[in-house]
């Protein structure tokens, strides 16, 4: 059992000393866009991509639970005000109304934060959308550890919750290109989709490393090859894996990176082919608790198919996480580039 946040009836409450004037600086707790990573950024890629899709497809509508600006849906709302529905802070009716509209032929994009969709609206997603296989696209900001505001807003277990749900396709895009190419792909997909959303100024990463890269729903893509270690990653951890691979190369370690933006259905064929090549340490990397996410999905794929490389997982611990500045938290919980390099070197 985790030691943090454990109930202690004899706990002493200690006030923290505030920083002295000139020390401490501004908090970066709400910097959720991961923009400051040395890459070019695209502003609100989801909102702009959805506008382009809606121009071509008049069945596309947008709903949000009072979070249009924070899910980049405000771009769509400005372009198509008559096809945008503000549901207020009411995730259950947002999800259900989206189901009702989907039944009547629309393709609703419903947006909120990942914690609210996964924890608050789950029953409605399961019964009103997934069981009926309706084309509702649930697009959620703040996946995993992308806010420093503490457990109430950190969706560290959303993939674990949704992976068990039949019929649901799950997408964890890495960067702006992934998001912009995923929008038409998930619109065209006939069933329900849950997509984790990088929002705001979103870095454009993968094509810097791999110019020919294209997002394909259901496909994992090898972004670089390497002989010592294979990193299988999704979400922004693919960016971290690419950055780590460059650094490891300078240190004489050759790392391959397999980007796996579709968590379900998992591209088991590509994963087995790459992990089965032998002679390489296989590491999964995810912005999610190590319970029930990409790592366990890959592990079960490998084991049940008799592929047994040395296998390690990078991801968040099974804990409610601290609040604070994101770079500090990413270091603390092992998902920064530096922490990734340290872990991989330790395993080799």
């Amino acid at each position, binding site marked *: 059992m985790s030691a943090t946040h454990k109930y202690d009836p004899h706990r002493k409450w200690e006030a923290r000393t505030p920083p002295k004037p000139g020390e401490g600086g501004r908090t970066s707790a709400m910097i959720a866009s991961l923009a400051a990573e040395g890459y070019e950024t695209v502003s609100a890629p989801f909102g702009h991509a959805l506008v382009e899709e809606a121009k071509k497809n008049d069945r596309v*509508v947008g709903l949000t639970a009072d979070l249009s600006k924070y899910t980049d849906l405000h771009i769509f709302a400005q372009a198509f005000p*008559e*096809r945008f*529905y503000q*549901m*207020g802070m*009411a995730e*259950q*009716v947002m*999800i*259900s*109304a*989206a*189901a*009702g*509209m*989907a*039944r*009547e*032929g*629309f393709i*609703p994009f419903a947006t909120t934060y990942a914690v609210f969709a996964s924890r608050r609206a789950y*029953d*409605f997603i399961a*019964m*009103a959308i997934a*069981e*009926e*296989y309706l084309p509702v696209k649930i697009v959620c900001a703040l996946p995993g550890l992308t806010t420093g505001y503490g457990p109430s807003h950190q969706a560290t277990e959303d993939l674990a919750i949704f992976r068990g749900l039949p019929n649901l396709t799950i997408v964890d895009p890495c960067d702006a290109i992934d998001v912009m190419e995923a929008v038409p792909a998930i619109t065209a997909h006939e069933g329900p989709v849950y997509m984790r959303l990088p929002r705001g100024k979103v870095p454009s990463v993968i094509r810097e490393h791999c110019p020919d890269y294209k997002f394909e729903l259901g496909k994992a893509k090898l972004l670089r090859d390497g002989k010592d270690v294979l990193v299988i990653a999704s979400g922004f951890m693919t960016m971290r894996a690419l950055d780590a691979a460059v650094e490891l190369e300078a240190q004489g370690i050759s790392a391959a990176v397999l980007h796996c933006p579709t968590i379900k259905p998992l591209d088991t064929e590509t994963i087995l082919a790459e992990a089965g090549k032998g002679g390489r340490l296989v590491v999964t990397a995810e912005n999610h608790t190590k319970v029930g996410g990409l790592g366990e999905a890959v592990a079960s794929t490998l084991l049940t198919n008799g592929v047994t490389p040395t296998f390690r997982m990078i991801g968040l611990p099974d804990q409610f996480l601290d609040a604070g500045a994101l770079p500090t938290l990413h270091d603390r919980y092992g998902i920064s580039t530096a922490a990734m390099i340290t872990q991989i070197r330790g395993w080799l």
Partner: protein
Amino acid sequence: MQPNDLDRIARQIRLRDLQAVFEAGAGHIGGEMSAIDILTALYFRVLRIWPDQPKHPDRDRFVLSKGHVALALYVTLAKRGFIPEEEVATFLKPHSRLNGHPNCNKVPGVETNTGPLGHGLPVAVGMAKAAKLTGATYRTYVLTGDGEMQEGSNWEAIASGAQFGLDNLTLIIDHNRFQQGASLKDTNNLAPFPAKLEAFGWDVTEINGNAMDEIVPALEKRGSRPHCIVAHTNKGHGISFMQDKVDWHHKVPNAEQYKIAVAELSEAL
């Protein structure tokens, strides 16, 4: 179809429902009996429907949110010609499509999957909103239980219905005063409902939900706001020993009780 004819049909549906519960050894007979007059009025008088075209785009939509009374809906759908009448005998049998809660992918005429309470009205808000967007003229009706109104999602939907001006939406609360474990009053008493719905911006009509001459005009009422019908009903209505007894939420009659119930329901057929 006149109220007398509707009463006769409702009695026949009650009788078939009772038989099916007895044969299957399961069902939710109390809530089925309270709701059957409303279902009969909807399917034999009010709803614009085409049984041979269950997905006709112009059909009125009916969502049975109190999905545990699925059997009453199956019997009604069978009598109205959506499914064969003899199929009712498969209720709850292995591989039957007539499950304990209705599934729209299996049964023609079932509009949405329900079972977890508090789902029907929020989905219906989306269906009614879709009609506004496309200019479709269908009306959306939802039947909930009164205990079901304890689910917070209903109140999210009630607020949304008013906010979106859904004058094409009718909510019927089957106010039989009992839920699974006890009376509404002794559980979490949301009654009286009318003032609450009115405060949210809905039109409200209170009726005797077991009287056809009150049910039909209420269902046919049209206004400029979403409409809630608070239907005062009796759990187990039509079968004397079941009426207003909480036990009959989920109980199955024994052979002797079955005989008495059949006799009572057959009296006026």
